[in-house]
């Protein structure tokens, strides 16, 4: 019996890791990349002096942060069809996760932009740069350094949150584990195995974060 449990765990490792490689990881990467683009846009809107623009950004952030991710996911996948919009599982998941990251990361990016001293903007202006040029060449590179730790948090959370996509039929790590568990009735073993695979992925991400922080710290006094 014990023998066959180990065999089961070993045998299920392939589909579970496969689910991570073809589901969890691409889903997280794609959603995070799109989410960052949304977040940058929302952060800049939020910093705008035009009331309506910053108000829109504020509203977006408030809705995203004030509602559960699972509900957002269900609204897109199960809700939209009732008004005639049918979105497949994968696109639904990517839309929901990137909108979600967009809301959370917007505040991180906004804070990071504000953390760069005003003198840096002025230095950009006085060498003749426009606002946009100063933002891209002077401010964002410095804001990036500040935002790596909080954005790493966001990314690691996202990797784990992709397990919710199993509920809208996306074949990813957790859905694979669920299916094998249901078939074999070894719930404890399979769910712990899934947990370990998530944990390993997050360990890799944490060390990637340290490497990135070191790289970006090369121009800062220690």
């Amino acid at each position, binding site marked *: 019996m014990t023998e066959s449990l180990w065999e089961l765990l070993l045998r299920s490792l392939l589909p579970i890791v496969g689910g991570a490689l073809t589901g969890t990881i691409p889903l997280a990467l794609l959603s995070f990349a799109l989410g960052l683009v949304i977040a940058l846009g929302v952060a800049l809107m939020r910093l705008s002096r035009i009331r309506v623009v910053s108000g829109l950004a504020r509203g977006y952030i408030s809705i995203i942060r004030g509602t559960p991710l699972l509900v957002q996911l269900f609204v897109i996948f199960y809700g939209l069809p009732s008004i005639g919009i049918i979105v497949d599982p994968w696109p639904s998941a990517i839309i929901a996760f990137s909108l979600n990251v967009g809301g959370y990361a917007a505040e991180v990016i906004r804070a990071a932009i504000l953390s760069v001293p005003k003198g840096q903007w002025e230095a950009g202006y006085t060498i*003749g*740069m426009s606002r946009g040029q100063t933002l891209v060449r002077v401010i964002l590179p410095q804001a990036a350094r500040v935002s790596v730790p909080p954005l790493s948090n966001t990314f690691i959370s996202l990797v784990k949150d992709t397990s919710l996509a199993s509920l809208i039929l996306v074949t990813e790590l957790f859905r694979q584990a669920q299916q094998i568990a249901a078939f074999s009735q070894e719930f404890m073993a399979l769910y712990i195995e899934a947990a370990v695979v998530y944990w390993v992925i997050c360990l890799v991400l944490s060390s990637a974060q340290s490497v990135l922080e070191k790289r970006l710290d*090369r121009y800062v006094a220690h």
Partner: protein
Amino acid sequence: MSPTDPLAPEPVDAPIEAPLLTARGIRKSFGDVEVLKSIDLTVPRGNVVALIGPSGSGKTTVLRSLNGLEVPEAGTVEFSGGDVVDFAQAPSKRQLASLRDRSAMVFQQFNLFPHRTVLENVIEGPVQVQKRPKAEAIADARALLERVGLGAKADAYPFELSGGQQQRVGIVRALALKPQLLLFDEPTSALDPELVGDVLDVIRELAAEGWTMVLVTHELTFASHVADTIVFMDGGVVVESGPPSEVLQNPREARTKQFLHRLLDR
């Protein structure tokens, strides 16, 4: 710095030409506080104008109005041969850009770009804004760094330099733009006393080369040596202006005398 230096501005020998910069009626309030009450300032080509006065007198705000970092409520700034920028009618981006194209600024806190090396700091404006060929910008930058004694630091990051070295990079970054006017905002106020001399030496050499400069400073002795005109400000007005021999040696106004006394008594 040799007088035949190719980067130095044209020698000045026509004293009757129009001033390089004329500012008229500059008014500025922060909230209810009127910090500038109609300031006029004339900067002849090749001259050094030093703004002095107690802190809070508005001298830095005047300087920052000249390149639009501060946007006054009223007043005009005009470069000879350029547009009259009228602050009463919210100046356009293009007008502010025209002020900044002709001037460059050296900041009290240096404001070097911390994520770029010394050389990258210096070539940023010439390459990204002025679209000059990179190789040419690098050659110029290296020559300028060499002249202020920082040739060996081209590939260092700002945090690896002392305050005095950072400020000399700040000056080189301004010079690399080949501006018509150099603006200095208390360039030595953030420096340790023993580092002030190196920076003042550089500014003195630039003055001798004929650069046009407006300088906000607390270094009165230095100002008296380097400036053609001293402008003494207090409470948002120009109290007195003229050559150092008048304003600093024989001030007419009571407020000027009081200010000088207070400094000399220390």
